[in-house]
């Protein structure tokens, strides 16, 4: 919102081969539809032939009428000839209609399939990319690539290709006819062609740069929308609407101006070609006149040429316009391919093995980690969680607790040392097989739009309704869910405030529980849940956790005290470790942190709790 428009992906480097490489790559997507292309081409051909034949049929009919009027043809023959030709014409029109309809039909199907594939690829790519990528890119800009950028490609694919075919065909036909009629005049009237090509090149270069800016700015608009709609409640809480509207206006105006510039270039392009085409006509008339005066041509030829030249430049103009539109499509395609080409930071190793069902022994060996090169977040982390153990990670905020658990699921890669699960380095097993065995309750409780049931089932798609309810009961969520208007079938949205934060946490816990994980990770999973409910959850989980390894991050003593190991992390290093009692006995950092907590709780001492 505060930064300017545009995505971080765009590197503004333009190489000469870029355009052609992008175009070639885009055309690759048409390859599976070669049959469609050929069919469409043939249909366009049929249509062109029929369209060209139609004036001939009319001409013949007029000739017959002429013959009748001048007395050469008798009425009956003229009449039957007229009828025959008109029926043929009807047939030609109908055939032309069928052909062009068929070719549109084929092209639409092809174009939409290509776009479908592109979108699938983009989305698939987004699923592949690792978390580090999303830390650096705006959701709105990524969305814009999948929708807005594919849309401009659509415009060229579905309409452009067809027009390109028919224009090219017409062009060739007329070209040949002109050469046959009078080659001198033909060659001279072609003289404007090179200028047309040059101006096309001139304009298209500019157009592409301009369109690239429109693509980028619409990405900015999209990003601004995404962020501020998602955060609209905060905006209203701080009466920030006016300021936001102002800054949106700016981003939006940048997009508007980029569009006006790009469209102006296109708007200048067409008339330029028109002028050139008319210069062609003038040349025909002027030079043709000269030829006639020198008996090298007839007036009839000039009249025909004037018609031809007009017809001739129409397809040239159409092709040039498609070319201009292509600039916009290429600008969009560049952004799409840029995304598709981003290598995921974390991929399954080539020889990655499926992690078999694990016992749950997790070991960090001398692990270091940095989000940005050079900025160490974790250093020298060594720890072992034996199967079935509960490990509590504690320490001040921002010291790397969440980072530690992010490494177990290999959401990021370590910069040194290694993380193993049952002795397997997490980098040597496949993602899916690792994460499937983990249940994670994250700090931000994200729920998808859909019903409560669907949200819990996200943890294990094959789970039956009964299992979902069972998991909800374990997470102590069942009671409040049944009190919702439609129970488990109540629709939730991202921002729905009919659920409290604590209730969202309970649903997230149920989701993780349902996954029946070998390793359970709870990152402040109960921070917004009241202590009584938390106790209930803990007793519920106790059974589930039998024989499973779990990691818990929490600030509340009640959550930590039963852990088999407590790891105190400070400034990215393990400062203390041991059981709760051991650490208290050490009288170190852990002791200090929890003494303070306890102290405040016993300050209001006079009341005797025993009576309760």
């Amino acid at each position, binding site marked *: 919102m505060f930064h300017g428009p545009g995505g971080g992906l765009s590197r503004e480097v333009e190489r000469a081969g870029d355009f052609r490489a992008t175009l070639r790559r885009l055309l690759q997507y048409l390859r599976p539809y070669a049959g469609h292309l050929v069919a469409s081409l043939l249909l366009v051909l049929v249509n062109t032939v029929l369209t060209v034949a139609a004036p001939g049929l009319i001409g013949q009919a007029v000739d017959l009428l002429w013959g009748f009027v001048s007395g050469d043809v008798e009425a009956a023959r003229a009449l039957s000839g007229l009828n025959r030709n008109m029926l043929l014409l009807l047939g030609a029109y109908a055939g032309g209609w069928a052909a062009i309809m068929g070719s549109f039909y084929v092209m639409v199907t092809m174009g939409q399939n290509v776009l479908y594939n592109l979108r699938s690829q983009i989305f698939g790519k987004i699923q592949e990319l690792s978390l580090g990528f999303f830390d650096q890119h705006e959701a709105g800009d990524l969305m814009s690539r999948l929708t807005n950028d594919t849309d401009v490609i659509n415009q060229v694919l579905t309409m452009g290709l067809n027009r390109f075919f028919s224009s090219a065909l017409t062009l060739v036909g007329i070209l040949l006819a002109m050469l046959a009629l009078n080659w001198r005049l033909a060659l001279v009237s072609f003289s404007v062609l090179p200028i047309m090509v040059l101006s096309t090149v001139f304009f298209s270069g500019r157009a592409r740069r301009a369109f690239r800016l429109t693509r980028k700015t619409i990405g900015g608009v999209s990003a601004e929308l995404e962020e501020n709609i998602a955060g609209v409640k905060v905006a209203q809480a*701080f009466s920030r609407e006016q300021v936001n509207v102002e800054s949106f206006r700016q981003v939006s105006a940048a997009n508007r101006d980029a569009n006006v510039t790009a469209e102006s270039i296109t708007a200048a392009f067409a008339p330029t070609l028109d002028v050139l085409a008319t210069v062609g006509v003038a040349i025909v008339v002027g030079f043709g006149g000269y030829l006639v005066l020198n008996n090298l041509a007839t007036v009839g030829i000039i009249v025909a040429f004037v018609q031809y030249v007009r017809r001739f430049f129409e397809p040239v103009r159409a092709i040039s316009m498609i070319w201009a539109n292509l600039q916009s499509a290429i600008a969009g395609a560049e952004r799409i391919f840029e995304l598709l080409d981003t290598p995921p930071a974390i991929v399954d190793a080539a020889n990655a093995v499926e992690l078999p069902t694990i016992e749950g022994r997790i070991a960090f060996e001398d692990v270091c980690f940095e989000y940005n090169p050079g900025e160490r977040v974790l250093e020298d982390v060594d720890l072992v969680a034996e199967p079935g153990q509960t490990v509590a990670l504690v320490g001040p905020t921002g010291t790397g607790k969440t980072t530690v658990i992010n490494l177990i699921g290999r959401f990021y890669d370590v910069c040194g040392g290694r993380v193993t699960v049952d002795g397997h380095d997490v980098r040597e097993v496949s993602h899916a097989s690792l994460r499937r065995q983990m249940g994670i309750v994250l700090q931000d409780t994200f729920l998808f739009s859909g019903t409560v049931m669907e949200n819990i089932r996200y*943890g294990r798609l094959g789970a039956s309704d009964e299992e979902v309810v069972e998991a909800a009961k374990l997470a102590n969520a069942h009671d409040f869910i049944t009190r919702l208007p439609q129970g488990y079938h109540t629709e939730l949205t991202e921002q729905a405030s009919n659920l409290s934060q604590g209730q969202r946490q309970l649903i997230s816990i149920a989701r993780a529980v349902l996954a029946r994980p070998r390793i359970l990770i709870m990152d402040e999973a109960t921070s917004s849940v009241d202590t009584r409910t938390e106790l209930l959850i803990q007793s519920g989980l106790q059974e589930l956790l039998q024989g499973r390894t779990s990691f818990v991050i929490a600030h509340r003593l009640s959550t930590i005290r039963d852990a088999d190991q407590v790891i105190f992390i400070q400034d990215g290093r393990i400062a203390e470790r041991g059981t709760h009692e051991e650490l208290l006995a050490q009288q170190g950092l852990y002791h200090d*942190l929890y003494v303070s907590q306890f102290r405040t709780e016993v300050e209001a001492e006079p009341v005797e709790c025993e009576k309760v």
Partner: protein
Amino acid sequence: MRPFTESRSGRQSEGRAGRRGGARGTPLLRALGFLSGYRWEAGGAFTSLLLSTAGSLVVPRLTQIVIDQGISAVSMNVIVWGAMGIVAAAVVSAVFSYLQGYLAAKASQGVAYDLRNALYTHIQSLSFGYHDRAQTGQLITRATSDVELVRMFISTGLVQLVSALLMMTGSLILLFGTNWQLTLMTLPVMVLVLIVFAFFAGKGRPLFIQVQQKLGRLNTILQENLAGIRVVKAFAREPWEKERFGGVNLEFRDANVRVGRMFALVMPLIFTLANLGTLIVVWGGGYQVLAGRLTIGELVAFQSYLMMTMFPIVMLGMIIMAVSQAGAGAQRIFEILDAVVEVTDRPGARELSPIEGRVEFENVTFRYFSEQEPVLKEVSFVAEPGESVALFGATGSGKSTIINLIPRFYDVSEGRVTVDGHDVRDVTLQSLRRQIGIVLQETTLFGGTVRENIAYGRPDASEEEIIAAAKTAEADDFISSFAEGYDTPVGERGVTLSGGQKQRIAIARALLIDPRILILDDSTSSVDIETELRIQKALENLRRGRTSFIIAQRISTVQRADKVVVLDGGRVVAQGTHEELLRDSPIYAEIYCSQLQDDRELLPAVGAVARTEAGQEVS
């Protein structure tokens, strides 16, 4: 879709709003109303179109002159001048053609800009109740894709439509003048064209609406996928997400194909109808010639006029799609613009002057949905100026709902909330919310730097003020530890902050507006206990003279409050000071003791230490 079709009380069902026409007019016409701000550009574009058309019409005439008077009369002079005249006419035509394109771009982009701003402004002002049901992806689709549909129509379709209709009328008059019998013969074709046009323009809209709806779904899945990418990855649900997306992607493709196929049917159909006109003229004219009622010259002349008539008809074929597409977009845009802002300044709402900070709930009952069980039932309590009030209760007991009513994010269903005796519904939202600093449960930070995020509520705050707020929120230390300090970018493209760090920035953000009423909704849940204590201490100074509301799970936080309101199932079951409640409220005492006693059993040694230390502090 649901958020938009499921109407809440007062909002009318919008699905067919546009169809009814009525006082508001069709959505497309309403969208065209936005053109009034660009009437000069639009008028200029139209005039330029006429002039450039006129210019290009001169060219054939000049060509004819060159042939008749130059070549036939063997005059090189006429040929040269004629040729130059042709080029001159072309240049004039080109200049106006460029102007037309440029002005149309200005006007249409201007309208798109205004529409988008209107949407954004409205979305910003729609109340929490609306956003609880709306999907971000849907809203984004409307502000981008739907606006673009309307824009495309204005930029090319509209001018073409008007000029096509004008040209049709003009040439029809010419046709009648030439030969009215033949004209009558072609009339059915034209009527047919108009019927086809009207039919498909109407039929196209639902198809386009479907396309846009699917696009909205697609965007929603994508947007949620991006927002929840951590959850997706945590559960290794990428294949499932791909499948989910794939399903809607397929539906989107099919909706597009349906539209494309209709297009494949209609455009050639109209083209063929135009050709049919030619056929009728030649055929019918031929009979007339054979009957001796028409000369061939007349037939040929009529035929060329007819071509002039058919050209705009063919153009209409192309415009149909643009019309129904734009209609679909406009309808979806106005669905949002027409959504009623439920919480808004009532007419004559007064500015709330600087307040003392007395907040009172009088018999407040509240439901999120009108059909639902109330979330709050007859809640009454008072917070005196300067008092700190802790809201205490189990998960889902209504704590957050109560504090959502103070800045009037929602309107109460029954009863009233007053600030310094003013019903919050009687004062302007701005003047109310500007005096309230709130830290919401879910910490949302925005892209931009730490500084900009803290200054979110007061963009003009000075450096010292920002740092002071950060210090109070115990955020200064970690912010200063970043290489770029307060200029460190955060949010989607910034550094990875821990939950506790985000919360502290959010607290600083609330403190910076120097509110009379401070609301902390579970805002230190992810902060370690030591830091929280320091924040509490700092806040205690700040709280002096401010009314504050605190929701917290930690009993230590709660017991420091001047007053505790205990909630259970949406009702106030007890209120008073910590001591009073321990004595009088079994629920409170139970929760308190469960926490405390547990800890004490666990911490016998520490307990002793703490007690002595506490003793020392007191003495």
